[in-house]
């Protein structure tokens, strides 16, 4: 297949901004050049005009300005004692980071790690190719077999735009040894009122009987444009829990991909997006069942107000070998305003015959009869609405074990929903 390729000024700037190197980076760059950035006819980016947003808001011929950030205290998660790793404008900042290596190994990503680049496929997605060619820093986390990492790792992705727009390219790799466990929390924040674009890829390898939890908090009140891909490979009997909370940002695209490559695996993908203003949040998830007797469970819920947009795309593959798979997926949305929109699409491809799979998506308004019921008991409209929405969101929030992180998420959700009961 051949296509007439047109190199746009944006793409030229991007290509010029990435220094040609040998190896994987160079390969990825040429793929990016061939693919070009996704246009409005791209199936995978149909509802998420990322290329147009980048054209409009960024100049890739310019470099990031330096940041003088001295403290990240205001961005810390209250009550969470963690290994704190801080990226500012795409660079890892050792002085702002606090961690020790007692039960895990934290090193800068080199690109030569075993398995690097094998999960996030740069040949099919230009944004992945871009990151693979352009990443400047990242963290490699290694946990030895039989080790339970006692404190979570918090990754702060901070954009300091006070002196100009920011573009950041981060690449992480996580390797969990047999029967080990680790919790990672990602958080985005912006200083200043100029635009920032982050392109962050995390690849994870979860060996036999290990457990990985990834929480992603996207509540950046700044002008954050974000592409992220998290690709996780799981060996037999491993567990993976992913939780994505999206409250703010200009344009947020999350690709989450789980490869269930063994028996007895359990994977949970949960997401909650409560959007307002003109935020666009797009969650694209893929669960790939390759072996028998594994379970995956996915619940994404959205509350969308103002002009905000939600996008959900959930693919489930059940390969011929993956008999006795249980795969469940659900996406439910409530639209609050007339202008709010959501596009949701489940995609199931099942080649095995002895499986239990289900999917469902719903989009609706607040139940008026329920609203009336609450009001008829003396509860004002604002509180009644908050009760209903909080209950709706609560089903996802309850997937998190109680503790300071859940309390923090709860407080953010409560604030967003004007909960006062």
């Amino acid at each position, binding site marked *: 297949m051949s296509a007439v390729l047109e190199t746009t000024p944006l793409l030229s700037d991007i290509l010029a901004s990435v220094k040609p190197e040998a190896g994987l980076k160079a390969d990825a760059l040429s793929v990016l050049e061939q693919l070009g950035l996704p246009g409005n006819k791209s199936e995978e980016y149909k509802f998420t005009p990322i290329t147009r947003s980048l054209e409009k808001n960024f100049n890739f011929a310019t470099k990031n300005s330096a940041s003088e950030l001295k403290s990240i205290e205001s961005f810390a998660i209250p009550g969470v004692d963690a290994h704190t790793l801080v990226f500012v404008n795409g660079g890892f900042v050792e002085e702002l980071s606090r961690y020790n290596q007692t039960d895990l190994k934290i090193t800068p990503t080199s690109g030569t790690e075993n398995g690097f680049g094998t999960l996030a496929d740069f040949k099919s997605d230009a944004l992945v190719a871009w990151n693979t060619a352009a990443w400047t820093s990242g963290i490699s986390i290694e946990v030895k077999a039989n080790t339970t990492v006692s404190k979570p790792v918090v990754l702060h992705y901070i954009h300091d735009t006070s002196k100009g727009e920011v573009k950041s390219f981060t690449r992480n790799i996580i390797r969990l040894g047999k029967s080990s466990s680790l919790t990672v929390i990602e958080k985005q924040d912006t200083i200043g009122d100029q635009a920032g674009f982050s392109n962050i890829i995390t690849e994870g390898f979860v060996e036999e009987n290990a457990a990985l939890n990834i929480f992603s908090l996207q509540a950046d009140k700044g002008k954050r444009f974000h592409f992220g891909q998290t690709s996780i490979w799981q060996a037999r009997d491993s567990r993976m829990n992913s939780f994505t909370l999206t409250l703010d940002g200009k344009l947020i695209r999350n690709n989450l991909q789980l490869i269930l490559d063994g028996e007895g695996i359990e994977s949970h993908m949960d997401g909650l997006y409560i959007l307002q203003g003109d935020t666009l949040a797009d969650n694209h998830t893929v669960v790939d069942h390759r072996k028998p007797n594994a379970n995956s469970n996915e619940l994404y819920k959205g509350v969308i107000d103002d002009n905000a947009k939600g996008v959900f795309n959930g693919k489930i593959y059940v390969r011929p070998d993956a008999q006795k798979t249980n795969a469940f997926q659900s996406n439910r949305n409530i639209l609050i305003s007339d202008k709010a929109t959501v596009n949701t699409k489940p995609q199931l491809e099942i080649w095995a015959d002895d499986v239990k799979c289900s999917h469902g998506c719903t989009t609706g308004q607040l139940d008026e009869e329920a609203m009336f019921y609450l009001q008829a008991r003396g509860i004002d409209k604002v509180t009644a609405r908050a009760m209903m929405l909080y209950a709706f969101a609560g089903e996802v929030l309850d997937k998190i074990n109680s503790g300071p992180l859940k309390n923090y998420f709860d407080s953010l959700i409560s604030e967003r929903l004007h909960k006062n*009961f």
Partner: protein
Amino acid sequence: MLSIKNLHAKIEDNQILNGLNLEVKPGEVHAIMGPNGSGKSTLASVLAGREEFEVTDGTVEYLGKDLLELAPEERAREGVFLAFQYPVEIPGVSTINFMKTAVNQVREARGQQPLDAVSFLGLMKEKMKLVEIDQSLLNRSLNEGFSGGEKKRNEIFQMAMLEPKLAILDETDSGLDIDALRIVANGVNKLRDKNKAIIVVTHYQRLLEYIVPDFVHVLYKGKIVKSGTKELALELEAKGYDWIKDEVAVV
């Protein structure tokens, strides 16, 4: 207490109430009976403030106020209570949390201090006994997975908690077996006093053996066409509604 004059109401293009008049004084129990589609539930809905119904004519005065001007929550705070014919299931909203919010918003509107957790639980325990409702039910999401009887008992429990001045029971007896009916009726009877009024909307005379009304009204084609005492209910039970229809047709 409640004075309804010439009330006309419609939903979409269906005119349902056609000049209804009703006077209710404190301490009285009024039963509204009538065949299906006569407008009984519409009357209950209009009084509680359900938005789908449009009042096209007439007035409703409640304790000196224009009831129709008030939002549903304001009516509730002024002491109007509707026991729903079909109580709504609201997953994720705990019954206790809901009740506490409602009680405290009502108290606030009445100029009372909100109840703290301990006093609220105390009040709740007391009222639970009244309708023989189990704590485990109240720990669950509001009405979710409740049986028909449990839902109706929960309505009366809420009524007991909110201490209304005017309670409207919309077919609270429909679908209940005799034991559940007795429990619900007992709960209602314990709440009767000289300052409170109750409007019992029902299709069946059976309920009125347990909640004995002072007045019985027959609603037909959106109007009260006959009023009497509890004997009227017995007559309706024995003869059905056809004779009423015939009487109205003659007039």
